[in-house]
């Protein structure tokens, strides 16, 4: 249904061009995260690696999985998973970190 809004004369080449660009961006990010891993940045290494990972995941979710074009309902479903994930991490780590720092 979403395809109807685009040009009806879409060719295979169009498909490859659009998605190929995203793929290229993903590859660049992969190269980037690999190189950053070898740069000694101390505590910053992990956040950078995870930040790049999140960016890659965002590209896949938003463009490959077409959440950008999906209904609010599907975005809500995805967001709910994320929010509950945060609840689980926050409350568990609240205990674990508090225990680590009181010992």
């Amino acid at each position, binding site marked *: 249904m979403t395809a109807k809004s685009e040009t009806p004369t879409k060719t295979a080449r169009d498909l490859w061009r659009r998605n190929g660009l995203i793929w290229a961006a993903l590859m660049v990010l992969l190269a980037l995260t*690999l190189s950053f891993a070898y740069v000694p940045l101390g505590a910053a290494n992990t956040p950078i690696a995870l930040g790049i990972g999140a960016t890659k995941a965002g590209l896949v979710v938003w463009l490959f999985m077409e959440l950008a074009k999906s209904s609010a309902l599907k975005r809500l479903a995805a967001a709910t998973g994320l929010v509950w*994930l945060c609840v689980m991490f926050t409350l568990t780590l609240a205990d674990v970190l508090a225990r680590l720092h009181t010992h």
Partner: protein
Amino acid sequence: MSDAALLKKPWQSMARQRDAGTFGIWVFLASEMLFFGALILTYTVYRVSDPAAFTAAARETDIWYGTINTAILLTSSLTMAVAVQASTAALGFRRLIVACLSLTVALGVAFLVVKGFEYKEDIEHHLVPGLHFALAQPAAQIFFALYWVLTGVHAIHLTIGLGLVSRLALLIWRRKLVFDDNPEIEVTGLYWHLVDIIWIFLYPLIYLPGRAS
């Protein structure tokens, strides 16, 4: 015209059926997020408890296998995305869809083959927790316990995905399945991308720590 062949009980319109299929799989993916999220939480808790052991252990993984596999999976997401969009375009891209789905399967199998080589190497390097474990720090064994669980569960998900995608490829190739605007392709695609996303997060958690120090 293809709608009649695809419409299933209890739906009255194809648009609604498609909407329900993709919404349903998104709900399931939210569930999967919590599934892998709980494992990653376990990893996080142990990593903050003993960061040194975790970086030391992570250094023992083979970064090349890991990186090649990341590239393979990202590429499989590309072929999957093209297959899905070719199907939703509803312009009769049968050969393109079959080719893309087959490529996706091939890349998925390649991932598992690389993973197999990596597992073999890990076993040879005594990276299986137990008596003859290679590293001295106790928590390094936890890292590798989680390494095997995380990659193993991911591989099971990937294998299920391979089954689903090969089925579609085979049926469309033998002209036994409507390929234009068939929600099954989109739903399978969403699952496949999720498996890729999980790996996108596993890669920096398993292979990248401790490389700089």
